């Protein structure tokens, strides 16, 4: 249980797919102009990641290593298409605003990377923990970045006007350069936070050693 929790935790800060592994950034920058898009993309992505990892993990002994990549792509593409169809059928508004980015989950490196590096080698329980951790790590970063960009660039949050009407939106933040800018700020913050955590862990160890002595 403890092992599963530590796998789950990895994806949120230490191995965060966007801020530490730095994969899947294109679609992340593209959809984070609006908080509701961030939530929708995060959930869709988590769903595809979870089910692809489960399937690959279950069948990992049956997949010949020579053709593993095409098989991964088939599995991922199938789940992505399912998400796309379900969203069109039951959440037409969300599907409309996400546009082309849902089909593009297929080529999102996060899923490919996790499937190749993790799911094809691990058992079911750790794979579920990894997928949920990575999915949550992806989702929170999307929401946080989208909140900053939407608030400064459009004066709204999830489409609701927050800033006073006199506020002149800074369009820069909605455009791609603003996306890179906010992204880099988050990456630096995350590294700073990670370093601090590591330092305090080392301190604790030292203290424990001294006490033992």
């Amino acid at each position: 249980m403890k092992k599963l929790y530590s796998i789950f935790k990895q994806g949120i800060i230490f191995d965060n797919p966007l801020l530490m592994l730095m994969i899947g950034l294109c679609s992340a920058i593209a959809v984070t102009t609006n908080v509701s898009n961030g939530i929708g993309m995060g959930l869709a992505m988590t769903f595809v990641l979870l089910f692809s990892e489960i399937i690959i993990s279950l069948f990992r002994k049956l997949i010949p290593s020579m053709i593993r990549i095409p098989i991964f792509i088939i599995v991922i593409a199938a789940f992505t298409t399912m998400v796309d169809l379900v969203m069109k059928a039951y959440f037409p508004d969300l599907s409309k605003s996400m546009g082309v980015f849902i089909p593009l989950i297929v080529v999102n490196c996060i899923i490919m990377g996790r499937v190749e590096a993790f799911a094809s080698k691990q058992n079911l329980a750790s794979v579920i923990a990894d997928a949920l951790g990575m999915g949550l790590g992806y989702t929170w970063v999307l929401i946080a970045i989208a909140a900053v960009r939407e608030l400064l660039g459009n004066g709204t949050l999830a489409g609701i006007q927050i800033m006073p009407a006199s506020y002149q939106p800074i369009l820069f933040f909605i455009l791609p350069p603003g996306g890179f800018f906010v992204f880099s700020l988050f990456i630096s913050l995350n590294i700073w936070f990670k370093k601090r955590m590591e330092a305090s862990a080392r301190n604790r160890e030292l203290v424990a050693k001294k006490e033992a002595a």
Partner: protein
Amino acid sequence: MKKDMTKLGMTLMLFASLACASLAVVYAFTKESIDKQSEIQLQASLKELFPQATAFEPIQGLVSPDPNIKFEAAYEVKSDMAPLGLAMKATGPSYGGAATLLVGIDLHRSIAGVRVMALNDTPGLGMNASSPTYYVDKTKKVTFLGQFNEKFLTDPFEVKKDVVAITAATISSRSLTKIIKLAGDAAIAYMDQKAISAPAENGASADAGTDANAQPQAGGK
């Protein structure tokens, strides 16, 4: 080696067919709902464009002069028996792929309104065409498509001249404007051909409808 390849091919085929089968199930399951959604959306948009209308009769034979832009459907809009205008469902290329718009044209040869049926574009930029809270004119709260309301087809319809573009999405703005103009022109040609016009019948339709304020206003301009 040859045996290996056959085996690998078979495995890949097996995975692909399993994926296909499960996709087919999901597709069959969601198809009805997707069709219903787009039908609901179409009906709701038609009703929005012509609140007084009681019937939308599909018409055929409208051909687009531009090979890239297609007219998927056209409706003669009627309130009881009096004509109110035409609604065109037109699809054309835009920045992020095909865009489908519903264009309403009233009897005064002006645009009654435009609604987005399907649009793939950059969220936050071109996608703002379908956003009800993105204003090209912030003080008057006019949306990108809202600026076409009551606009006469005799206008040039040129982006950055008489049409305000969406910020940072000029290509999308141009393509959408072109679809609207083309659909509008075709509708007017059809109305001229069938001799559907405003003056005499307008009194009858105004009686039938409760909210006819917009029409005499548009005609008076």
